[in-house]
C-alpha cells in the first residue's frame, strides 16, 4: 500500500509481463499513463482502468490499479455503471478504434452525451490489431487488408467530429510517441469534469506500420502538426511559419509574411463548437493535423446529478425504512 504522497511510476506497474509486440505504440502510452497517475495526488486504490477487447484493451493488466478487461466494445457502458455508483473513483477507459468506434460506437456516444466522468483513451491505430489486421472504421478508403484484399470501401469516421457531434465536453488528440504532449493532454483530461475523450494516434508496427509517419517522421513534425493552444493564434510550421485563417466559414492555410500576419489567424478557443468542428475536419493531405485540446467546456456531470437526485429525495422523504416500503399503498388487516 503505497502512500499517495510518494507514489511513483513503479507503483503503477503490475507484475504481469507486457505482451504487446515489440515496437508497438501501446508501450509509450502505458509509460505516459504510469507517469501521469502518480502525479495526480490521488491514492492508487482510487484508480480503475476499464477496457474492452483488442490489443490496446490489454492495458489494465499492466497497471497496478484496479482494472477490468471487459468485453468487446462495452467498456464505456461498464465504466458508466461503475462511475455512476462510485463517483469517488477515477475511472479511465482504454479502448481501440475497433472497440470504441465499431462495435462500441453507441456506448461511446451515449457516455459523451451523458457526460459521465470518464477519461476515454482511444488508441487509434487504424486497424484491428488483435484479430490480425482487418481494416477498421478509421482506416483510410482503399486500404488493403486481409478482409479487404481489393481495398476497403467504407469511408472512415473522423473520431473527433463524431465525439463533437455527440456532445462531448472535452475532445483532444495526441500521439503515442509525443510523450511530452501526450502527458500534457492526459493531465488536462485528468482535470476535466465529465467525459474526456482523447484520440491517441498509435502505431501498430505489425499490421499498419507507419500509419502516422506522414506527420510523426522527425522531418514532418513541424510541418504536419498544429499544436493548438487556447487563446493563441493557430500557427504551425518549422522555418516557414504558416497559419490558419477563416475565409467564408472555411479554413485556409496561409503563409505568414506572405501578405498575412499572426493577426489574420484564427485565435484558438476551446469553447467554440464551430471552431472545434472545423479543426476536427482538417485532414491530411490538404491540411496539417491538429493536436491538443479541441474542446473543453463545462456541462453538468451525469453521476453528480444522479447522486444529487438521490440525496435530494432522501432529504425530502427521509431515508426510507423497510416498514414504510412494505406498508405503502392500500393495506388491510386480517385478524
Amino acid at each position, binding site marked *: 500500500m503505497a502512500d499517495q504522497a510518494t507514489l511513483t511510476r513503479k507503483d503503477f506497474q503490475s507484475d504481469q509481463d507486457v505482451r504487446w509486440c515489440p515496437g508497438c505504440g501501446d508501450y509509450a502510452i502505458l509509460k505516459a499513463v504510469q507517469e501521469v497517475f502518480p502525479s495526480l495526488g490521488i491514492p492508487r486504490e482510487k484508480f480503475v482502468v476499464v477496457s474492452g477487447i483488442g490489443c490496446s484493451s490489454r492495458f489494465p493488466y499492466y497497471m497496478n490499479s484496479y482494472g477490468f478487461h471487459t468485453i468487446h466494445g462495452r467498456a464505456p457502458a461498464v465504466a458508466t455503471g461503475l462511475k455512476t455508483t462510485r463517483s469517488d473513483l477515477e475511472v479511465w477507459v482504454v479502448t481501440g478504434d475497433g472497440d470504441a468506434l465499431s462495435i462500441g460506437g453507441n456506448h461511446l456516444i451515449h457516455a459523451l452525451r451523458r457526460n459521465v466522468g470518464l477519461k476515454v483513451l482511444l488508441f487509434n491505430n487504424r486497424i484491428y490489431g488483435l484479430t490480425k489486421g482487418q481494416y477498421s472504421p478509421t482506416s483510410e478508403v482503399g486500404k488493403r487488408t486481409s478482409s479487404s484484399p481489393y481495398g476497403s470501401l467504407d469511408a472512415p469516421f473522423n473520431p473527433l467530429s463524431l465525439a463533437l457531434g455527440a456532445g462531448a465536453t472535452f475532445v483532444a488528440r495526441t500521439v503515442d510517441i509525443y510523450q511530452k504532449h501526450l502527458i500534457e493532454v492526459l493531465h488536462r483530461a485528468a482535470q476535466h469534469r465529465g467525459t474526456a475523450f482523447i484520440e491517441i494516434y498509435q502505431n501498430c508496427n505489425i499490421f499498419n506500420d507507419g500509419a502516422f509517419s506522414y506527420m510523426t517522421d522527425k522531418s514532418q513534425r513541424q510541418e504536419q502538426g498544429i499544436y493548438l493552444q487556447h487563446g493563441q493564434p493557430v500557427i504551425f510550421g518549422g522555418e516557414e511559419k504558416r497559419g490558419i485563417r477563416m475565409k467564408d466559414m472555411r479554413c485556409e492555410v496561409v503563409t505568414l509574411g506572405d501578405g498575412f500576419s499572426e493577426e489574420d489567424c484564427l485565435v484558438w478557443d476551446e469553447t467554440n463548437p464551430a471552431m472545434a468542428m472545423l479543426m476536427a475536419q482538417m485532414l491530411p493531405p490538404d491540411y496539417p493535423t491538429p493536436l491538443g485540446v479541441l474542446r473543453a467546456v463545462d456541462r453538468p456531470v451525469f453521476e453528480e446529478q444522479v447522486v444529487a437526485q438521490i440525496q435530494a429525495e432522501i432529504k425530502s422523504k427521509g431515508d426510507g425504512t423497510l416498514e414504510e416500503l412494505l406498508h405503502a399503498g392500500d393495506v388491510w388487516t*386480517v385478524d
Partner: protein
Amino acid sequence: MTSSAVVHDSVEKLSDVVIRFAGDSGDGMQLTGTQFTNTSAVLGNDLSTLPDFPAEIRAPAGTLPGVSAFQVRIADYDIHTPGDAPNVLVAMNPAALKTNIADLEVGGILIVNSNEFNKRNLTKAYYTENPLTNGSLEGYRLFEVELTKLTRAALDEMGLGNRDRDRCKNLFALGMIYWMFSRPLDNTEAWLAKKFASKPEIIEANLRAMKAGWNYCDITGAFQTSRYEVVAAPLPAGTYRNINGNSALALGLVTASRRSGLPLFLGSYPITPASSVLHELARYKHYGVTTFQAEDEIAAVCAAVGASFGGSLAITTTSGPGLALKSEAINLALITELPLVVIDVQRAGPSTGMPTKTEQTDLLQAMFGRNGESPMPVIAPSSPGDCFSVAIEACRMAIQYMVPVLLLSDGYLANGSEPWRLPEVEDLPDLRLEHHGDAEDFQPYRRNPETLARNWAVPGTPGLEHRIGGLEKQDVTGSVSYDPDNHQHMTRLRAEKVERIARTIPPLEVDGDSGGRLLVLGWGSTAGAITGAVNLARKEGVKVSRAHLRHLNPLPSNLGDVLASFEQVLLPEINTGQLAMILRARFLKDIITLSKVQGKPFMRGEILAKIHQLTGASEG
C-alpha cells in the same frame, strides 16, 4: 360462480365469482378492475386478477385491437387463479363484446352499454347484425344498460362537455357492479380524493357517475334478482396489500438491498412487460436506489456489471429479446464471478412475437443461451406475491455465491395481482456478507471453502488492487491463463459453485401423497392453475399429488427421489416442454408435457382434463 346457496335479504351468497370488465382502451377498464379489486381486497376476499392490454397504445376507438379487459376473481376461500370463464362480463361496446363473449360461462351475466351498439361501432367490430337483437346472446342473462346516456344525464348539472362526461362511464359501470356484489363505495371515494386532489371537478364527476350507477341498480331494480355477496376468505392473520408481480419484484429487490447493506443499482432498457420494474424502482430514490435507463439492453447489463464490480447489488431487468442481447455480457459476470441478478419477464416469442402476451418459453435460453460452458442459477416465482421473496432469494444466491442469477417471471405474473401478506421485517433473511479480502496475501480468486465464492474486493480498498476480465483466469491468483488443466478446473468449479447452492435450498415439498400414480409438477406462473386443477380433481376423488419448483438450477436435491416415487409425472408448461427436457435428460424419467403456447395462461380446466385423461377418471 360457486354458489353457497344461502339466500337472505334477496342477497345471494357466493363463494367465488369471476368478473371481466371489457371496453375500449380509452374506457378506463384497467382502472375499473383495479378499483373493484382493491375494494374486494379490503373486504377480505381472496382474489386474483388478469389484465389483458391491447398491443397498440391506443388503437382507433371502437376497433377490435383497441379492446382492453380486466378480469378479477374474488372468493371467500383460498384461490390461485383469476378463473377460467367469467361469470359476469361487462362489455362497454360491440368490439369488447365480440372479443370477450366466447369466454363468458353459459348462463352468465352480461351487461352491455346499449348506447354504443350503433351502426358505426358494429361495423368497426365487424358485426353484420346487431347481436343484441339477433338472438345470438340468448344463452346469457343479458342486461342492456344505456350507460352513455345515463352517465351523461347524471353529470348534466356539472356543465361538462360530452367528452368529459363520457370519460366517467366506467365509474357508472363500477357503481353498478359494486351494487351487484354488495360492496361499499368508500374505498374508491377515498382513492379518487387522493388521486385527483388538485382537480375537485374530476373527483366530483367520477363520484357522481359511480353513485349514479349504484343508484340506478338500487332504484330501477334492474338486477333485482341478482344481488350477491362474497364474504371474506379465511386468510391467515396479518396485514395485506394487493400486489402485482412487477411491484413485488421491485419491493423484493429494495428489501434485499437493505438486508444486505449493499446499495441497489438497476441497469435497464424499457421493454414490455418488464418496464414497470424500472418504473417502480425509479420511485425509490430515498432508499438509495440508483436506476439507470441505458441506451440498450447491452449497456444496461454492462452498467450493472460495472456497478457490481464497484460493490453494488446489481440488477438488470428485461424480457426475452433483451435477454438474448444480454447473454454475452452475462457471461462476463459469470467468468469474472461477480454477483448480478438478471430478471426476465417473459413474453410470447420468438422475435418480437406477441409482446403483450405471456409465455414460459425463455427457460432454455436462460439455462443455455450463452457461449461456452456457462451454468448459472435459475429461479422462478409462482405468483405475483411470490415475486417478492424470489427476488430476495435471487439476490442471496448472487452475493453469497458470487454468480449471476437468472430470475424468470412472466407477463402473467407481472400484471396479475393478488393479496399479499406483508412479511415482518425481522423475519426477512439477513443477507449481510462477511468482509471480503485482506490486504495481506490477498488473492482475487481465493475462495470461501463452503460456497466457493471468490473474494469480492471493491475498488477503492487500499492494497487490494487487482484486475479481472473475460479471459480465462487462473484459480486463486486471477491471472490470465491458457493452461488446459486450469481451464478444465475452472469449468468444473463454475459448475460446482452453482451445484453447491442446492445445499442451501429446501427440498421439494409434495402436496398430497408423497408417491403414487400421478404427480403434477410445475414451475413459475402455472402454480395457480395447477393448484386449482389438482384441488378440483381431488374434490372429484382423483388421487393426485402436486409439487412446484422454484429453483430450476440447481434443482432441489430430493427431486430425483420425488420423481421416482410417482408412476406418472405431468408437467404443464406454457412452452413446448422446456423443463421437461431438462428433467428427462437428468433423471431419464418420462415426463409428460402438457403444452400450451397461445400467449395465455393455463385454465384450470385444461389441466384438469389432462389429469382425467391420465388417471382415467371421468369428466367429473
